[in-house]
């Protein structure tokens, strides 16, 4: 199996070194890991490497990938003179899964008031009432122009929304009015 392995280290408190010392060693570090298709990062507070490791197909292959990856990264770091700091994070992700995750944007799909009303098929006033009735999820962010919702939150609301035709009840209108004041 093919894996993308992450090994991240962090300098213990008080043991950080000058940023330029680590940055100047990142190039040689990447070259040392060259056959593993690496990407490296670091400064005076720590360094990390993400690279390819191949293993067999056994059930504990992920654990083997992490174990082998840690040895590979630390050996390469030692060879180029990078500080050997404690490893604070390791991760192995099966390569096809890893690549598929990277195809999807890591910025969430967000909706403003206009998009939410279009998605729900309601007026702005109705959305206002829904928000005040507390049945509608709170926005993730509020900027001056509009509240912003994460798309999946609105989709989830829509999936479970028992839409009632006609005007909202007097009680619901009263509740909305009172909470808006």
């Amino acid at each position, binding site marked *: 199996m093919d894996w993308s392995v992450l090994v991240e280290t962090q300098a213990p408190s008080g043991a950080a070194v000058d940023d330029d010392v680590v*940055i100047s060693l990142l*190039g040689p570090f990447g070259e040392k890991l060259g056959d593993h*298709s*690496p*990407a*490296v*990062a670091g400064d005076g507070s720590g*360094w990390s490497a993400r*690279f390819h490791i191949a293993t067999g197909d056994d059930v504990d292959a992920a654990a083997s990938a992490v174990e082998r990856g840690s040895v590979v990264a630390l050996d390469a770091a030692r060879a180029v003179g990078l500080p050997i700091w404690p490893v604070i994070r390791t991760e192995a992700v099966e390569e096809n899964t890893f690549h598929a995750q990277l195809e999807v944007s890591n*910025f969430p799909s967000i909706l403003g008031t206009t998009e939410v009303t279009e998605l729900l098929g309601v007026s702005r006033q109705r959305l206002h009432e829904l928000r005040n009735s507390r049945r509608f999820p709170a926005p993730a962010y509020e900027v001056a122009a509009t509240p912003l919702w994460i798309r999946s939150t609105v989709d989830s609301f829509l999936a479970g929304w028992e839409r009632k035709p006609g005007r909202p009840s007097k009680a619901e209108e009263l509740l909305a009015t009172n909470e808006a004041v």
Partner: protein
Amino acid sequence: MDLPGRELPKEYREVAEELVSNQGWRYNDGSGRGGHPMLFPADPSKRPIAISTTPGGDKRRGFMNWLSQIRQAGGIWPIERRK
């Protein structure tokens, strides 16, 4: 503001240009620091990322590993600008 140029392969340059132009990252072509191009995240608590395009390994794997480091440091990619 340093912008990435032809010292980077096209796929790396495309990401780096977006990060520097629109996401507050800084770029150094490596002429002064260690000889490798570097990207510095907009969030100063995140660590600089080297752009290593030396021979060896698989190019697509290397790019995807690099992209993962970029995203972990707060870079947004791919970009889906909508209106």
